[in-house]
């Protein structure tokens, strides 16, 4: 399977509330909250780290999950977040195009 890279969409607004991300879509101001796993994906979606590495280092080490299953779930989740324009996905590393690309807090 080829690597999948994720980057936070710089057009959204985001803040962590008690360990879970609140995200306001830049497209239509819809509010989302991400559960703890989705929050990890968001936090490490730097455009440079492939999804399998995020899952291996950040998800499997924290949550008690099977690596293969975790990767599949994470990919489904990443595609869902991308469809809502919260994440950007690519098979190549994603370079920040917008100089204002945000840092998660």
């Amino acid at each position, binding site marked *: 399977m080829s690597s999948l890279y994720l980057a936070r969409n710089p057009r959204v*607004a985001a*803040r962590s509330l*008690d360990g879970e991300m609140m995200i306001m879509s830049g497209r239509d101001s819809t*509010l989302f909250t991400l559960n703890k796993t989705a929050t990890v994906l968001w936090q490490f979606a730097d455009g440079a780290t492939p999804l399998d590495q995020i899952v291996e280092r950040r998800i499997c080490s924290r949550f008690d999950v099977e690596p293969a299953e975790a990767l599949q779930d994470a990919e489904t989740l990443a595609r869902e977040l991308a469809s809502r324009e919260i994440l950007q996905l690519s098979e190549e590393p994603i370079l920040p195009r*917008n100089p204002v690309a945000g840092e998660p807090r």
Partner: protein
Amino acid sequence: MSSLLEEVSAKALKLNIPLSVQLDLTYRCNERCVHCYLDHDDHGEMTTTEIKHLLDEMADAGVFILTLSGGEIFLRKDFFELLEHARRLMFCVKLKTNAVLIREREAARLRDLAVESIQVSIYSHRPEVHDAITLIPGSLQRSLNAIRFLKSQGLKVIIANVLMTQNMQDYPGVRALAEELGVECTLDPTVTPMMDGNRFTVNLGVDQSALRQVFRDASLVGDVNEFCAIPAKPSENELESTPCSAGHTACYVSPYGEVFPCVQFPLPTGNVRRQRFVDIWRYSIQMREVRSIRVKDLTTCTSCTHVSSCTRCPGLAYMEGNMRGPSSQDCEKSFARTGVPSANMLEKKRAGINLVQIRVLPNMARPAA
């Protein structure tokens, strides 16, 4: 409020997080609105560096919704630098402006920075009425041009229409204009007293009959009977609830770094030039006092028919002298809605009768000539 936003607000309330902050970048303004409650002279605004530092502190404290307002925000030469910084910190940024200084270039920049919404004050669809309120000839035309530039960039624009005697008859025209422009429109019948407590601006507000007209306009309130119904007795839960978001999940910071529970609640709680934002939020005695108040603690209001549906603003009550007391402007609104006088009105009336009796008694005691 969407149910998810309600859920998030409830969580922020429990965790004592200031979810939403209004930061006024300046009190300077290029309009001179007759009802404005601000002193427009610059008494030492925070510098670019101070504001960026404050934004960092606010992001760390958990602030999510950041409303940048003024005065007129575009008068700050560093406005876009500050906005860029705010967006880098991933705030959900809302702007309040008269939009007079927004042209194509500014609108495009706002789109690039993905601001959530831009609220523009429009007082009338007629230039002679709007410009007579802003005291700037041509201001309506410039604000409307700006709204078109913003819309053409796909930005969300909200027209804010403050109702006063001067523009009372024009709100249907403003709403039609908003529809034509494809933007939202809000209507606010409350005129805020001056920050120093001077209430002359309040006299520009609409009277009872105008309020009654607005509250019976189904296009504004929906089901008139329901909106104007006399409310049920408050439940235990309602009595235990907090009066509003001020000091609970929201606060206000002035251009001079002063922190208040709300833009309409000028109780000083600290200054970010001397203290960390989060320390003021968590530990200021005044903030904690505001936070401790429950509906059941309100004087007068707890015995009022309207308490469960009243829009009582604790900030306006504070400006009248008691943050636990009633706010006369909200009493007026409750009365206009239901036709039932508020506990505060009845108390004042009784006090009036007493005063007459006190004045009359000595004369009566005077021996007959």
